[in-house]
C-alpha cells in the first residue's frame, strides 16, 4: 500500500511543486486549497502525512491541525506545517497545536523530502 | 463640519462671557475712583481752598462748595450705577 500524502496549500504553484516532489518519491498524493477541504479529505481517507500550509482562507493551518488532533482515530497522521511567516513564535504555536514538524518557506526541496521520509520511517533516499 | 460648528459655539460662549464681565468690573473701578475723588475733594487740603468769608450768590463759599459737590457726587453715582442688572448673575 503506497504512502498517502495530503497537500494543503492555497498557493497553487507551491502546491504544484510539492505534488511533484511527493509523487517523485512514489507517494500517493492528494492536494487541496483550503482548511475545510483538508478536513473533508482527511475524513474521506486518513492520510499518512499532511503537508499543511498555515496561512489559508477559511480555516487556517493551526485550526486544521487542532481539529485533526482532537479526533482519536486520526492520531496516527503525521503533520508537517509549512509557513511563510518565519518567526519562532509561529513555529512554537504550530508544534503546540500538535504538528510534528515545521518547515519555513521558502524551503529546500531536498530537506523537505528528507524530513518527510524520516517522519514516515523510510530509509534515507 | 459639525466639529467646526461646535468649536465656534465654544468660542462664542467664552467671548460673550468675557465681554459680559468687563462692564461690571469697569463700573466697580469707576465707583472706587469716585470714592477716592470724593475723599480728596471733601478733605484737607482741597477743602481749605473754600474756607473763606465770601459769598457765591449770597451763600457762603464753603457751604456752597460742599453742597454743590454733594449734588455733583450724587449725579455721578447715579450715572455710574445706572445700566443693566448689578448682580453677577
Amino acid at each position, binding site marked *: 500500500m503506497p504512502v498517502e500524502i495530503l497537500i494543503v496549500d*492555497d*498557493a497553487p*504553484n*507551491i502546491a504544484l*511543486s*510539492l505534488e*511533484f*516532489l511527493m509523487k517523485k518519491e512514489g507517494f500517493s498524493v492528494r492536494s487541496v*486549497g*483550503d482548511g475545510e477541504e483538508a478536513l473533508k479529505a482527511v475524513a474521506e481517507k486518513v492520510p499518512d502525512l499532511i503537508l499543511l500550509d498555515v*496561512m489559508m*482562507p477559511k480555516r487556517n493551518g493551526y485550526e486544521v491541525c487542532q481539529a485533526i488532533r482532537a479526533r482519536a482515530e486520526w492520531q496516527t497522521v503525521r503533520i508537517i506545517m509549512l509557513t*511563510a*511567516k*518565519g*518567526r519562532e513564535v509561529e513555529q512554537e504555536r504550530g508544534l503546540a497545536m500538535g504538528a510534528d514538524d515545521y518547515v*519555513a*518557506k*521558502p*524551503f*529546500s*526541496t*531536498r530537506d523537505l523530502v528528507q524530513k518527510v521520509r524520516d517522519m514516515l520511517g523510510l530509509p534515507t533516499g | 463640519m459639525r466639529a467646526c460648528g461646535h468649536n465656534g459655539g465654544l468660542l462664542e460662549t467664552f467671548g460673550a462671557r468675557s465681554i459680559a464681565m468687563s462692564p461690571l468690573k469697569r*463700573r*466697580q473701578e469707576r*465707583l472706587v475712583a469716585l*470714592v477716592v475723588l*470724593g*475723599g480728596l475733594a*471733601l*478733605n*484737607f487740603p482741597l*477743602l*481749605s481752598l473754600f*474756607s*473763606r*468769608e465770601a*459769598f457765591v450768590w*449770597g*451763600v*457762603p*463759599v*464753603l*457751604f456752597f462748595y*460742599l*453742597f454743590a459737590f*454733594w*449734588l455733583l*457726587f*450724587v*449725579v455721578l*453715582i*447715579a450715572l*455710574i*450705577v*445706572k445700566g443693566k*442688572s*448689578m*448682580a*453677577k448673575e
Partner: protein
Amino acid sequence: MSWQWIAPLVSVAYLGVLFALAYYGDLRAAQGRSLVNNATVYTLSIAVYCTSWTYYGSVGRAAVSGVGFLPIFLGPLLMAPLWWFVLGKMIAIANASHITSIADFIASRYGKSPVLGGMVTLFVIIGVMPYIALQLKAVAVSMDVLVDHLGAGLALGDPPFLSNNTALYVAILMALFAILFGTRHLDASERHEGMVMAIAFESLVKLGAFLSVGLFVTFGLFDGFGDLFGRAMADPALRRLMTFDAVPGGYASWFSMTFLAMMAILFLPRQFQVLVVENFNKNHIRQASWFFPLYLLAINLFVLPIALAGRLIFANGAMDPDTFVLTLPIQAGQHWLALLVYVGGLSAATGMVIVETIALSTMVSNDLILPLLLRFRTVFRDDLSGMILSIRRGVILGLLLLGYLYFRLIGESQTLVSIGIVSFAAVAQFAPAILLGIYWPGASRRGAMGGILIGFLVWSHTLLLPSFAKSGWLAGSFLTDGPWGQAWLKPEALFGLTLFDPITHSVFWSLLANMGVLVFISLFDRQTTVEQIQAMHFVNVFDKGGKGGNEYVWSGFVSVVDLKRLVARFIGPMQAERDFAHYIHKRRLELEDNAQAPARLVAFAEKRLTGAIGSASARVMISSVVIGEELDLRGVMRLLDETSQVIEYSQRLEQKSRQLEAATRQLQEANERLQELDRMKDEFISTVSHELRTPLAAIRAFSEILRDNAELEASERQKFTEIIIKEAERLTRLVNQTLDLAKIESGKMEWHISEVNLAHIAQEAIDATKQLFDNKSVQLVNKVDDHDLMLQADRDKMIQVVINLLSNAVKFCDATTGLVEIHWQDTEEGVGLAVVDNGPGIPLEDINKVFDKFHQVRDSAADFLPGSGLGLTICHRIIERHRGRIWVESVVGQGSSFIFLLPRGVVEG
C-alpha cells in the same frame, strides 16, 4: 385743650398711625403682595440713619461749629458708591447663610464662633446704648419744650425744664411699640416688612417737617439765603461759622468723623438691619446708592440756615441750640408748625429706637441668650418659639430701660452730638473684621476676636470712660492724670499723643490697635476647617456652586460594612463596592470591613447617597445606621480642628492624584495608539514577509526541481520555468508596490501635478492592461471615450490607479463571461471614473476593508491571480493625496463598481 395734653396725645396718635401702617405692611407681605419690594421704600428705610440726633443735634452742632455737623452725612455720601459691590456682597452673603444680624455676620464669617457672636453682641449693646439714650433725651426734651413753651409762652432765659419722668414714659412707650412691631411672631428670615413700611413713612415725615421748618425760617423769618447769610456775616460772633475755622478739631477731626460715619452707615445695627436683613432685592441698592445721599442732602440743606437764624434770633445765647428747630417756630407763634416739627423729631427718634432695639433683640436672643440656654437644653426640649419671643420682648424693654438709665446717669450732662459719636466710634470697631472678612480669606477667628476686643478696650478707655468722667461718674483725675496716675495712659492723650481732638484720638488708637491685631494674629494663625470653609463661603459668595460649607460631621458608630450595605441599597452593590474601594484606596486608608467607619467615610457615604436620593433623605438614611448622637457644634469644631490639617493634605493629594490620573490617562491613550501602530507595523511586516516568501518558495522549489530532475520532459520544464518567471514578476511587482506605498505613507513620494484629462488616462491604462484581459478572455468596454474630464493631478499616479482598478477587476471576473466597463463620472464633488465588473461582488461586511493592505490575500480564493494585495491600498492613498474619494459599491453575485472622484480644483504639489 392744654398743650400739656396735646403733645402726648399727638405722640400716641402718631404711633398709632405708624402701627396701622406696619400692620398693613405685614398683611400685604403675608398675602405675597409686598409693599417693600420697591427701591424707594428701601431708600427711605435707610434714612433711619437720620435720627433725632440729625433732627435736633445737627442744628445744635452747626450753631457752634458751622459746617462741622456735615461729616456725619458726608461719610454715607462717600460710602454710597461702594454700596453697589460691598453692600451687594454683604447681602449676598447674608442671604446665602441666613444671617440676621451683624453679630451673626461676624460670628458666621469666623468659623461660626459663638464666643465671637456673643462678644460682638455685648459690645454692640455697650456701644449703642448711648445712642438709644440720646433718642430718649431728644424726645423728652422736645416734648418738654413743646409743653412748657407752648403752655406758658416762651420764657427766654429759662433753660427748658427737663422732666425725668417724661423720658421714662417715652422709653416705656417706645418699648411697647418696638415689641408690638418686632416681636409679634417669629420669622426665620427676621424680616419685618411692616416695620420697614413704617420706617419709610417716618423718613418722609421727618424730611417733610424739617424742610417745612427750614423753608419757614429761611423765607418766613428771613428774606431767603442771601438775607440770612448776609446778616450772619455781619455778626462778628457768627462770621467765623462760615469758614472751616469753626470746626472743632479742624481737618483731622473732620476726616475722622467722616470716616466714622462711613463705617456707621454700614455697621450700625439698625443700618445693617435695614440695609442687609430687610433688603428685598439686591437691585434696590442701585437706586439707594444715589437716592439716599440725595435725601441726606435735602435734610441737611437747612441745618446751617436754621442754626444761624437761631443764633441771630436768640442772640443772648440762652436757648439750647439743640432745640432751635422747635423754638424758632414757637418764638414766631407758629404753634402748629412746632407741633409738626415735634412729630418729625418723634419720627426720627422712634424710627431709630424701633429698628435698633429690634435688631439688638434678635442679636441678644440669638447670639447671647440662646447659646447659653441651649447649653443646658435638657430643660428646654419642647417648642422654643414662645420662649424666644418672650426673651426678645424682655430684651427690648431691658434695652430701653438701660437707655433711660444711661440718660439719667450720664446723658444730661452732654450734648446730643457728643453722645452719638461715641456710638459711631464703637461700631467702627466691627469694620475691620467685616470688611477684611469678606475680601481676605486669611482673616482668622482669633485675629478678629483679638482685634475687636482690643479695639473695644481702647474705645472704652479713650471715649466711653472719659464721658463717664465728664459726667462726674468717675473721678476727674482719671482724665487729667490718667488712671492710677499713669500719665501715658491718659485717656485723651494715650502715649502722650495730644495732636488730635478726643474723637480722632480715640478712632486713631482704637482702629490702629484693632486692625493691627487682626492682621497680625491672622497672619500667624492657623485657621480651623470650619473657619476656612466659612471664609471661602464669604469671600467667594458670588461663585456659583462654591465650596460647600454645609457638610455635616457625624459621630457615633457605624461599621464600614454597614455603611457600604446602606449605600449599596441605593446605588447597587457593585457600584458601592467600587466607590468605597476607590475612596479608601485614594486616601490610603486601611480599613477592615468590621472597623468603625471614620467620620470622613461617613461623610463620603452621605455625599454619595445625596447624589442618588437627595440631601435630606441621605441625611435620614445615614442617621438610621449611625449609632450614637450627632455631635454638638462644639464637638464638630473640635473634631474639625483636629482633622483640618489632614483634610487639607488630603485635598491637596486628591488634586494631585486627579492631575496624575489625567496625565496617566493621556499616557495610556498615547501608549495604546503607539501599540496599535506597532501592532499594525508588525502585521504589515509579517504580511509582507508572507507575501514575499510565498513566491520565493515557489521559485526556489521549482528551481531546485529543475536542478535535481534533469530527466524532466521539455513541456514540463517549460511549464515550471514559466511558473518561476511569473512568480518572479509577482515578486518584483510586490516589492515595487510596497516601496511605493511606503513612499506615499512617509510623504516622500514626488508628485508631478499637471493638467490632465481622465479620458486619456483611462485609455492609457486600458492599453497597459490589454494583455491581462486578453489572457483571461474578459471583455473590456471603454465608455469614457473622448469625454473631457480635465483636472489637476499627477498623470503617472492616476494611470497607476486605473491600472490597479482594472487588474483588480479582471482578477475577479470569470474567464470568458467576464465583463469590465469603465465609465466617466462628473458630479458637483468633482470628476472621476468608475470601473465596473460582473464578478462575484463583495460581501457587505468586507466592503470597508477592500482598501486595507493585503486584504484580498486573506480571504479570497481567487489568489490564483497575480496581485500583491497592495494595489487597492495604493489607489486609495493616491486618490486621498489628490483630496479625492474612492469607494466601492457592490452587490454579491452581480459585481462591483470601484468609483473615484477628484475635485476639479488645483492640488498644491
